[in-house]
């Protein structure tokens, strides 16, 4: 479970480590595109133009990257403590639902109260959702990968139940809650685009995370516990308490990602709420090697793929699914060590 532990080293090493899985995945997807009768260079050129070609496209990319920065951060925070939280997808669901619930029930409140309460609701819901897996891991050593994975399915089904029953918008046939009050919506930064204040929240949290990891005692302890739990315990750190704390923090950030999606993009909670933000977040955290800058760049890449993938489907006959293929392969290549042990041994000798 230590595949994502970052190693301090020279500058080119993390850069190469980040670029290599991308290039490998793009090469594999290129073969697939060629077989399907497309020119991969044309497709990638179009993807680049559609994601970074104009101010409008850049804002769209940033908007798509926002939830991924948060889910990537949520996973990185847990990774750092040596906990593999696969359950962020579930947190996105419960957090999004909680934020939307506050947003469409307490409509009498002014924006200055309603928006913060909605966001707070998502933080509480997300962290409570991770309480059971966190405590089970810390107290009984129950494998958190299995419990958090199971919790995803539970969250998705429970949310579907609530949206189809008690919380279904009156007069609505499709499974969705009522729209949240205008006062609960995250303000848009560049009006026609969906880029919203959630982006600023994500950037602020990434900066805080970078500072926290380097300068705060808890950040150091977490890193220590992640690298070597027995050594951390011997130095007087209570690893179980730390594990629970980091799981709650991870859940809270995952919940916030749901709130940003609900209050910034969708305006309510619907079934099939998240397009796998929690799972893409794993790829983001892995590729970003748990660093704040790395998470930002990796989220930007996946955001670009998602937004450009949707538009190239309109202009060409390349299916958008190529994006999922690239994403899955990036995950695989990010943890595969092609000749690296051999290379490391050579550098060492």
């Amino acid at each position: 479970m230590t595949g994502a532990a970052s190693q301090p080293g020279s500058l080119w090493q993390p850069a190469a480590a980040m670029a290599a899985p991308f290039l490998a995945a793009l090469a594999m997807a290129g073969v697939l595109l060629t077989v399907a009768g497309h020119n991969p260079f044309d497709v990638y050129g179009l993807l680049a133009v559609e994601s970074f070609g104009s101010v409008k496209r850049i804002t769209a990319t940033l908007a798509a990257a926002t939830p991924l920065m948060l889910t990537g951060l949520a996973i990185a925070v847990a990774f750092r403590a040596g906990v593999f939280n696969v359950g962020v997808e579930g947190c996105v669901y419960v957090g999004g639902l909680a934020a939307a619930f506050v947003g469409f029930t307490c409509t009498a409140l002014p924006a200055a109260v309603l928006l913060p309460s909605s966001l707070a609701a998502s933080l509480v819901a997300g962290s409570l959702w991770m309480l059971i897996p966190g405590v089970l891991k810390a107290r009984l050593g129950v494998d958190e990968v299995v419990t958090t994975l199971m919790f995803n399915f539970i969250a998705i089904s429970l949310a579907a139940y609530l949206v189809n029953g008690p919380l279904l918008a009156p007069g609505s046939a499709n499974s969705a809650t009522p729209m949240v009050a205008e006062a609960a919506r995250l303000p848009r930064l560049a009006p026609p685009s969906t880029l919203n204040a959630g982006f600023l929240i994500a950037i602020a949290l990434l900066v805080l995370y970078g500072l926290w990891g380097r300068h705060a005692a808890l950040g150091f302890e977490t890193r220590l516990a992640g690298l070597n739990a027995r050594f951390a315990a011997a130095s007087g750190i209570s690893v179980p308490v730390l594990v629970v704390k980091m799981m709650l923090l991870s859940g809270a950030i995952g919940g916030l990602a749901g709130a940003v999606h609900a209050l910034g993009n969708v305006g309510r909670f619907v079934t099939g709420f998240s397009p796998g933000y929690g799972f893409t977040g794993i790829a983001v955290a892995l590729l970003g090697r748990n660093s704040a800058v790395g998470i930002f760049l990796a989220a930007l890449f996946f955001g670009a793929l998602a937004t450009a993938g949707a538009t190239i489907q309109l202009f060409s006959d390349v299916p958008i699914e190529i994006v999922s293929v690239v994403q899955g392969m990036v995950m695989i290549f990010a943890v595969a060590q092609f000749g690296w042990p051999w290379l490391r041994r050579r550098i060492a000798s």
Partner: protein
Amino acid sequence: MIDHVIHAAVLMTTPVLLAALGGLVNRIAGLVNIGLDSMMLAGALVGLIVAAYTGNWMAALAAAAVAGGVLGFLMSLAITRLNANEIIVGLGFTIAVAGLVRFFLKSAYGSSGTLSLPDVAQLPRITIPVVADIPVVGAVLSGHDPLTWAAWLMVPLTVWFLARTRTGLRLRAAGGAPQAARALGLDPLALRDASTVYAGLMAGLGGAYLSIGVVGIFNEGITAGRGFIALAAFYFGNNGPWPTALCALLFGLFDALQIRLQGHGVPTEIVQTLPYVMVVVVLTAMAHAVRRRRAKGG
């Protein structure tokens, strides 16, 4: 009505049982297979296409098994030879294969998510003459296809294989004590690869069962997370083939009841969470028991 539920429960158990038995052997050899669902999906698609073009269900099953096995082999190589984390590779396969399947459907058939082909050879049903007319017993034993019978036959075979055969013992050594296995001249990585290929074969068959055994069409959501239910089943069964099969049967029963209860005021979404809740409860109980035993012993 009870006969219908029993029949549907047996039907819905088969795909989970097949994948779970494969994942169980995989786990015993030392690899937790998170990618079972992707192998089921590939098996479901390949099975349907071959069933339509050859008109032969046996060829379709073989092709589906090969598709799952190839994916299992690739996944295993990434884990055993490139030291990749099994959980991340498994999730990566889940995402990549889902994308590949939809990419293929759009590119080759111009359809989004669903594939319906003419002349699909479906699995035959075996009706046992006298037994079929007995209530309950008839629903349990009669009217099922060969793959269901094969899946249940695999349960005692897996017990026997793991406990009594040379390869079974070697697989257990590769998972339980890889260093010792290597010292004895075995190749734990190769054994692990073989077990993952086997898990892929079984999951591929489970997937084909969904497409040509149950409905006769393919849909991108056809597995409905059954690969993860299979994972839940062998975790629940704690590596025992019989408890795992029992758990698969329980999940099949939930599946059947849920279809029955639709529109009767019982929220089906709540029923859907039960398998997953059960796994968390059982893992907790097991960890608690281990802790208590240790506290007594020490």
